[in-house]
């Protein structure tokens, strides 16, 4: 699977989960975001969120097939 495709799936999955639980919060060090804010930050490529949240997410998506399958299930793929 190509990197762009993986990134597209990741962003879609994050947006879907954020739309289901917009007010849940994520704490990254001393900064706090709602899931909705995280989805928006991922969408606009916020450097802090990309480095601290999206990159580890993408790495795991690339490396773990089991995780990839679960994420694909969430976004409706197979």
């Amino acid at each position, binding site marked *: 699977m190509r990197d762009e495709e993986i990134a597209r799936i990741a962003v879609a*999955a*994050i947006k879907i*989960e*954020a739309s289901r*639980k917009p007010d*849940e*919060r*994520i*704490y*990254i*060090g*001393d900064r*706090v975001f709602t*899931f909705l804010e*995280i989805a928006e930050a991922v969408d606009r490529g916020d450097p802090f969120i990309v480095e*601290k*949240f999206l990159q*580890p*997410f993408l790495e*795991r998506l690339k490396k773990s097939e*089991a*995780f990839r399958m*679960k*994420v694909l299930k*969430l976004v409706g793929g197979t």
Partner: protein
Amino acid sequence: MKALIVAPVFDEATRHSYDWSRLAKTMLEEEGYLVHDLSGRGVGRREVEEAVGDTDIVCFFDHGDEDRLFGDRSEPVLDLGNVDLLSGREVYTMACLSARRLGVEAWRRGAKAYWGYEDSFIFTTDAVEEFREFAVSGLRYRLQGKSWSEALELARKLGRSLADKLADEGKIIASSCMHHDADALRCYDGGEPPARCLLRRIALKIFGRVGWLVSRLRGVCILGFGVGYGIALHDYAHALWQVGGYREILSFQGGYLGFALMLIFFILEFIDFLRMARR
């Protein structure tokens, strides 16, 4: 046995870490530790320094940075300036980033173990219970009698299994964060912390663990001495070559005695430093 728990509260995230520290406190008390608790408010540097006293284990639940642990929004309660206080103690933190420098420095200065994270500790509110379980897991394993190295392996394994469970439940954001935390977990308890600096890696390769005690200034001095020595020797040889060619260079010169003495005493001084460092 005595333990110190520092769990300041001064923002949203620290309310959660304070909550997690209560579980750690209960675990310690159940194992018979006398717990000195500095928690639930902003905590000052001096009170932590005084409280460390003769504790066996120091637990810290709050924000951190590469070289410090915070007691409130701005004041570090432990940093490179007072890291010596951790010598001879086991240190358990859930603070972000502190395993990068503070943990390494604590280990270098004789802490029995330093538990911390090399990157940010990230958690989500839809899986608070799982993150709490993970955050205190190392301490739990240690109190069950595992070594710190074993506790590290078990905690990482637990983190990854919790990440899988969260993914199964469709909590993929929490799952990714949990997996990240498990990857960022470090424990220095006799194993070598990773050296980031190339010169440090070289020093460790040559001198073993003592390589951690070669200060940056000493490293620069050694490098400077080597370069200066080389330049002087080259220029001296060149001057001899101008006078009488290679025959002059290869013949005995008083200057060579000077160079030999410089080298011998430099090596002797360094051997003396290594002996002291080993002690």
